[in-house]
């Protein structure tokens, strides 16, 4: 891991939650950017170049699934780690997210923020999974 702060992009239309996460994660030493809809997600990724995307599924304009597909299909962003973080918790949703290439899946309210911070750190310390697998 480089000396610079790990960057996380939060894609969530719930401003309260996004702000809380931004506050907490900044306190925990991450660099955070927030976008609030699906359409701006890819734009934000290309601009902000995050190490990890915290992606909600139910987003205005473009669903999280579509954003995920787009991230994986765009060469510049295809290696970015994506943690899906949604209020949807169905087995089907989890399966779909996994098929579209999500690195992990967490259900809002089923993970405490402290555990989430630990999870993010763990994901970020891992070598970029997709890269090592393919490279």
């Amino acid at each position, binding site marked *: 891991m480089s000396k610079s702060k790990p960057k996380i992009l939060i894609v969530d239309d719930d401003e309260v*939650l996004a702000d*809380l996460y931004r506050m907490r994660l900044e306190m925990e030493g991450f660099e955070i950017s927030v976008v609030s809809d699906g359409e701006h997600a890819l734009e934000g990724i290309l601009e902000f170049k995050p190490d990890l995307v915290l992606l909600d599924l139910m987003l205005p304009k473009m669903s999280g699934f579509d954003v995920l597909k787009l991230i994986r299909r765009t060469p510049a962003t295809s290696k970015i780690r994506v943690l899906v973080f949604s*209020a949807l918790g169905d087995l089907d949703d989890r399966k779909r997210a996994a098929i579209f290439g999500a690195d992990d899946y967490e259900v*809002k309210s*089923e993970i*405490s923020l402290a555990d989430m911070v630990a999870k993010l750190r763990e994901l970020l310390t891992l070598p970029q999974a997709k890269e090592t697998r393919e490279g």
Partner: protein
Amino acid sequence: MPNTIPQNQESNKLERAALTFRPFLICLVAVTIPWHIPQTMALFAIVVGMTLFYCFRLLTLKSHQKFFESQAAALVIDNIFVSLLLFAAGPVITVYSGLFVITLIAATYWYRLRGMLISLIAQLAVITLTNTVAFYPPITLGLTRSMIVGLGLFIGVGFIVEQLTRNEHQERVLLSQMAEQNRLESSNLLALVNSMPDAVVLLDDDGKVQLANAAFGDLIQSEQSIVGQNIDKLLALHSPKKDSISLINLARSDEKTMRHRGLMAVSASGAEVGLEATITPNTLKDSTHHYIVLLKDVTNEKSLDEQRQEFISVASHELRTPLGIAEAALSTMLLGKKDMKPEAVTLAEQAQRNVIFLAALVKDITTLAEAQRDALTVEIKPLQVRPLVEQVYKDFLPVATNKGIVLKVQYLPDLPTVLTTEHHVHEIMENLVSNAIKYTKEGGVTITVRPTPAGGILFSIADSGIGISAANQSKLFTKFFRAEDYRTRETGGTGLGLYLCLELANRINAHIWAQSKLNHGSTFFLEIPPVSHLSRDSGQVVQAKVKSLVDQL
């Protein structure tokens, strides 16, 4: 249908009356023949021929019922014979006896005593009239003799017929009363069956409709006649997975009354209709079968069930975001607890604990609702035992290590491959292992995987924890049961975990039970059968099993 019975009876009577009369008519003609004239032999030939014809007819009536189906046609043939006889006898027979025979023939059509009497009176009137006006030659002694014989015979016949018709009359009155009663009963029954909101069909062994009520007509929306049609052509059933189902095959497979759920059909308007069929097979006296099929439209009921699931799913989903926010806010606030008043810290921590508890409750309720909804759609696949257990181990190792207890896994050799739903097994294992760690303060938790004699797999999760008292063991798998008072609890738990486990185990017909001694740890067992059949039945059977096992401890 029932009103055809008296009709049959009527034509039988007509037939019987005609057959009774005819021999007497022949006798009458024979008696009136003057024996000295040359035509006698020819007349005799006709009389013998007719007698033979009647014998033949009676015989063939018995064996070739169908050929002589038309009674009226048979009567016409009879009377043509009699007319032939009259025609041949014409030159020698008097006009009186000719008239007499013709009126008798006519009377046989009305065969009743009344008809007979009218013909008799008419006969006498004609004789008197013709004698009075002397239109015909006066009656000779010979003729008078034959007329007297004829009249005597006729009165005898009339008497017999009267007796016959009297019995028949009573019979007929009784029959018509019965028919009326039958009609009333059947119309009442029909009204009853037709007023049922559920479709009822009576099928024969070939799957042809014998009888159907109005609701069935509504269901299939057919303008054509239903009776005699093949049920599978009238009503194309299919499963939720679109496999077509033959109702008659379903019926044939049943020994006793069976209920078949999860049937679908497409209604005339193109909408999907959910049906539930109750089939009662019935063996008749002649050992043929028929089936009484009751079809219940469960489209709305199902959608109610689905609505409930939908509600739970949406409600729990809508609860998640605010719960997540509350937890995140409290958790972040507590980061700066050094700068907070101790009372505030305590309050915030209490709030956080309860938010986490609430979140766990929502999770369990959602899982239950999902399990109920997914009961028909989950897949049965070979279970990857080791990857599953490794995943559970990996997930809980940090928790166990944090608490300072040892988490171990051991596999016994020769584990078979079982067919079941991985998701459910995973969920149950997570719950059991999480519980085991939760209630263990020191020592360890051991997951053991072993084959069962039945060819299944037995998971056991043994802990060295606080154990469960005998009194509490029987309540273990019930909803919202917690061994401790939740207000004084040291461990977070919703009280739904084991109930959820039992529900899920039940769905894959796995057995789940516990052995425990207070302060000596507990062991929970999960036995997966070689092949799981998904069922939507309630957990009562398994619950009873759990209870009896616990009672034995």
